C-alpha cells in the first residue's frame, strides 16, 4: 500500500514537472504572439481594441499560467507542503506571479509590449530557478508551519507586482532614450540589456556543463585550517585555497584563491561573465546594432505617459502586498518560530531596504519632476534590490534564510 502511494506521488511529481515545462513553452509562444500583435497593430485605429494576435497571445498566457498553477498544486500535494521552500520553488513561484500580475495589468491597459517583456523576464526567472536542485525537500522544523505559505507567497506576489514596474520602466527607457546616441543614459540602458544576457549566459554555461556531466573534485583548506573537498561542476579557472585536484584529467587551475573567498562561486561568476560577454558580442556582430536599438521597434507605438502610469500603478498595487507579506507576516512568523519578530537577519534587513526604497519611490512621485524617465530608472534600481535579496542574500550573505539555497 505504502509503495503504491509512493509511486503515485512520484507520478504526481513527474506530472507536475511536465506542467511547469508546458507553462514555459506556452509563455514562449505567447511572447511571439504578442510580438505579432504589435506588428499587426501598425496602422490600426487606436480605439479598435486588441487585435486577434493579442487575443490569442493573452489566451495562451493564461493557459500557461493555469498550467503553472497546476504544477504548483500537484507539487504541493506530492510534497505535503507549499512548494515555496527552496530556491527552485521560490523562484518559479516568483516567475509565475509575475505572469499573474501581468495578466491583471493587461486587462487594465491592454499593452502587447508589456506582455513581451514581462514574459521574457518570467521565463528568465523560471530558467534560473531550474539551475537549482528541483527535488522536493523535506521541511526543517522552523519552516514547518502554515506561515510558510502565508508569508512566502504574499511576499513573492508583492515582489512580482513590484517587478512589473521594472518591466514598464525598461519599456519606457527603450522608448524615450535615443539608443544610438553616446552618453550615460544609453550606456546604462545597454548595461541592463547586457545584464539580462549575462543571466542567459549563466544558464547556458550551467546547462552545457551539466549535460556534459562535468565534475572535478578538489581537496582544499578552509579558513579554520580544516581540510575539505570542493566539487566543481564547471572547469576550474580559479581553484580553492591550497586546492589540489583529485579527479583525473580535469582542468587544473593556474591560480588558487585565498580561503576567505568562495572559489567555486567565483568560478561560476567568471564562466558566466565569459559566456555572457561572448553571447552579447555575437548578437551585436550579427545585427551590427546595440541590443537596445534592436528592441526599439517593439516599443515604437508605446505611449510614454501610459507606460509611466503602468509602472507607478504596479508599485501602488505591489507595495501594500509586499509590506504585508514581506514585513508584517514575516514578523508574525518570526515571533512564533524564532522567538522575536525582528532580528536584523540579512534577509530581514533587505526586505526592509526594499520597503524603504519603494516608500521613497512613492514619495518622489509626489513631484512631477520624478515622473517619467527618472521613475523608470528608479524601477530598475528597485528590481535590482529585489534580485539582490533573492540571489545574493540567499547565496552569499549567510543568515537564517540560507536554508533556501
Amino acid at each position: 500500500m505504502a509503495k503504491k502511494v509512493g509511486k503515485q506521488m512520484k507520478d504526481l511529481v513527474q506530472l507536475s514537472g511536465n506542467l511547469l515545462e508546458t507553462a514555459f513553452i506556452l509563455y514562449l509562444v505567447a511572447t511571439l504572439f504578442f510580438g505579432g500583435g504589435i506588428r499587426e497593430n501598425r496602422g490600426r485605429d487606436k480605439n479598435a481594441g486588441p487585435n486577434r494576435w493579442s487575443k490569442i497571445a493573452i489566451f495562451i498566457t493564461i493557459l500557461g499560467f493555469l498550467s503553472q498553477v497546476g504544477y504548483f498544486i500537484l507539487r504541493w500535494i506530492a510534497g505535503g507542503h507549499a512548494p515555496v521552500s527552496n530556491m527552485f520553488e521560490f523562484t518559479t513561484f516568483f516567475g509565475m506571479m509575475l505572469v499573474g500580475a501581468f495578466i491583471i495589468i493587461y486587462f487594465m491597459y491592454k499593452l502587447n509590449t508589456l506582455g513581451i517583456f514581462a514574459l521574457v523576464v518570467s521565463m528568465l526567472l523560471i530558467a534560473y530557478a531550474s539551475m537549482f536542485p528541483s527535488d522536493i525537500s523535506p521541511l526543517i522544523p522552523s519552516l514547518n508551519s502554515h506561515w510558510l505559505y502565508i508569508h512566502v507567497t504574499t511576499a513573492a506576489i508583492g515582489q512580482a507586482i513590484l517587478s512589473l514596474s521594472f518591466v514598464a520602466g525598461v519599456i519606457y527607457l527603450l522608448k524615450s532614450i535615443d539608443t544610438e546616441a553616446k552618453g550615460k543614459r544609453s550606456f546604462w540602458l545597454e548595461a541592463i540589456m547586457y545584464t539580462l544576457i549575462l543571466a542567459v549566459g549563466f544558464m547556458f554555461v550551467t546547462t552545457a556543463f551539466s549535460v556534459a556531466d562535468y565534475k572535478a573534485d578538489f581537496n582544499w583548506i578552509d579558513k579554520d585550517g580544516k581540510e575539505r573537498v570542493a566539487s566543481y561542476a564547471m572547469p576550474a579557472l580559479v581553484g580553492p585555497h591550497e586546492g589540489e585536484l583529485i579527479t583525473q584529467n580535469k582542468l587544473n587551475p593556474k591560480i588558487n584563491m585565498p580561503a576567505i573567498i568562495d572559489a567555486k562561486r567565483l568560478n561560476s561568476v567568471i564562466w558566466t561573465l565569459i559566456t555572457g560577454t561572448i553571447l552579447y558580442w555575437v548578437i551585436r556582430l550579427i545585427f551590427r546594432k546595440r541590443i537596445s536599438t534592436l528592441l526599439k521597434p517593439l516599443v515604437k507605438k508605446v505611449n510614454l505617459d501610459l507606460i509611466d502610469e503602468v509602472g507607478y500603478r504596479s508599485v501602488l498595487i505591489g507595495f501594500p502586498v509586499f509590506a504585508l507579506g514581506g514585513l508584517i507576516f514575516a514578523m508574525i512568523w518570526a515571533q512564533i518560530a524564532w522567538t522575536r519578530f525582528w532580528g536584523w537577519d540579512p534577509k530581514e534587513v533587505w526586505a526592509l531596504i526594499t520597503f524603504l526604497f519603494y516608500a521613497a519611490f512613492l514619495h518622489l512621485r509626489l513631484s512631477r519632476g520624478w515622473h517619467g524617465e527618472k521613475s523608470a530608472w528608479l524601477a530598475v534600481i528597485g528590481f535590482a534590490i529585489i534580485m539582490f535579496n533573492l540571489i545574493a542574500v540567499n547565496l552569499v550573505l549567510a543568515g537564517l534564510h540560507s536554508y533556501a539555497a
Partner: protein
Amino acid sequence: MKEVKCECGHVNPPGTILCEACGLALTEEAQKETLHDMRYEGSARRSQTYNKSIIDKIWNFFSSVKVGIWLIVITLTASSLGTLLPQVMYIPRNVDPATYYSDQYGIFGTLYYILGFHDLYSSWWYLLLIASIGVSLVICSIDRFVPLYRALKNQRVSRHEGFLKRQRLYKRVEATSQTNQDFELVKQRLKEKRYNIREDDGNLLAEKGRFSRWGPYVNHIGLIIFLIGGMLRFVPGMYVDEELWLRDGEIKTIPGTNKQYVLENKKFTMELYDKEKDKQVYGAALDRVGNVVKSFNSDVVLYERSPDTTIGDNDNLTKIKEAVIRVNEPLKFDNYAVYQIDYKLDEFKTMTFNFLKKANEEIKGEVTIDLFDPQEEYDLGKGYKVELLGYYPDFSGFAENGEPQTDSQTPNNPAFLFNMISPEHPDGEKSFTAIRQTLEPLGETEYKMTFKGITTQNATALIVRKDLTLWILGIGGAIFMLGVIQGSYWNHRRIWLQRIKGDVLIAAHTNKNWYGLKREIEMLLKNTTIPEPEDQNDKKSDNNEKIE
C-alpha cells in the same frame, strides 16, 4: 499675517494659495500659473507660511518631503552596510568580537568592528536616523493633513472660472439646446459610477473616493504607533528574554518570571527524516544533503510556586499544565512564551569505573559517578574506597603549576583525580583519569581505575520571552496596512460641470491614475454634446514642479 477674505466671501486662514471655497487664486504667483498644483488643494500649510522663530525653522525642516526622502535613503543605505558581515548577535557567543572579526575577515573585519558596524542597528546614530524619520512622519503629516482637510471640507460646488481653467483636465465649449438634457444624463451616469453629487445653481460637482486622501496620514499614524511600541521595549518589565537549558528530568525555575514559575523537562525528543517512513519524494533530497531534522520537542510540566514558599523549595509547587513545546509551537502562559530553540544530544550523565588490581586484573568494585552530583567518596566495602580529590567537568589541560584546568561546568570532557584506598594502601594511591588518558602523578600505582561505561542524556534549550509591546506593534501594523491600502487602492476623483456665461465648462482632477479617470470620463460623456476634457499636460510637458 492675516486671514484672507476671498471675493466669494469665504475667509481663508493666513497663507492660503487657492480659496478653500471657490478656488480663486489668492497669491500673485498662483495667478500667474497656467496649471494649479492641486496636491494639497492650494491650502495654507504652516511650513509655507511661517519662517521666523527657531521652532518655525525646525518645523519647516522636518515638514519637507525632500528631507523625509533623504532620511529614508540614508537609512536604507546604512542598513545595507550592516549585512556585509554577520552582526554581533550572530557570531559564536563565547568569543571576543574584537578578535573574532579580525581573525575571520582580516583588515576589513577589524575596520568593520572599529567603526561599530558589527552592532550597527543598536548604534546611537542608527537609532537617531529612525527617530528622525519618526519626527518627519509626524510633522509632515500634521503640516499637510489639517489644511487639506479644511480645503476639502469647505469646497463649494460652484468654482471660480480660473480654478477650473487651471485643472489638468479641462475644456470649455458653448452650450447647446441639448446641454440641459445631457447634464441630466451625465448626472445619472455619475450616480451609477457611485459618485457623490452636489449641485448648486445648475453647476455640478461629482466626487468619489475622498477618503483615500487620508490613507497616507492613517498609515503614518500606524507607523508612529509602531515606533512608539518599539521604544517601549526599553521600559523595565515590558520585555523579558532569557535562555533556559533543561536536561531530561531536570526541574528549574524559569528565569525572568520573578521565580514564580518552574518548568520540568520530562523528555526531549529529536527526530530525523526517515527515507523509509517519510514521503518517498524526499528521497532524492535526503540523498543529496544527508540527515535532515524533522522535529524536536520537549515534554514539559509547568508549575507555579506559591509566593510564601522559599526559593529553591520545589516541594510545594502547583502543577499548572503539561505541554509539548516544539518549534513554531511555544508554551504560553501569563504573558510569557517559552520557545523550543536548540538542543544537545547525548550529553554525558554518569561515568562508571572498575577498581582493579593491575597485577591480575581482578575487579575489586565498581564506582558510578553522577557527573552533575559527584560524591566525595565511594565506599566499595572490604577496605576498598575511592576518594574523589578533584573533578574537572570540561578538562582542557594542565596549567603551568600542574593544576588541571576546566573550561566550564558542563561535562563535555570529564576528568578526575582519584585517591584509591585499598587494604594494602590505607592512605591511598593517586590517579588522574580522563577519557582515554590515565596519569599517575605520584609514582606507579598497584591499583587502577578503568573506564567501564557511560550513560548520556539529552538537554533542551528553551527561550523565555515576555513582550508586552506586541499588541501595540500589532495595532500600529494593522493601522499602517489599512492606511496603505486606503491610499493605494482607491483614488480621489472629482469632476466639475459648470455653466458660465452661456458656456459649458468641464474639469476633472484625480490624485493619481489619470489614465483611469480619462477612461471613466470617456464613458460618462459618451453620446452627449459635452466634450471630453483635454489633458493640458500634453501641451506643457515642461511644467515641472519641485519637491518641497
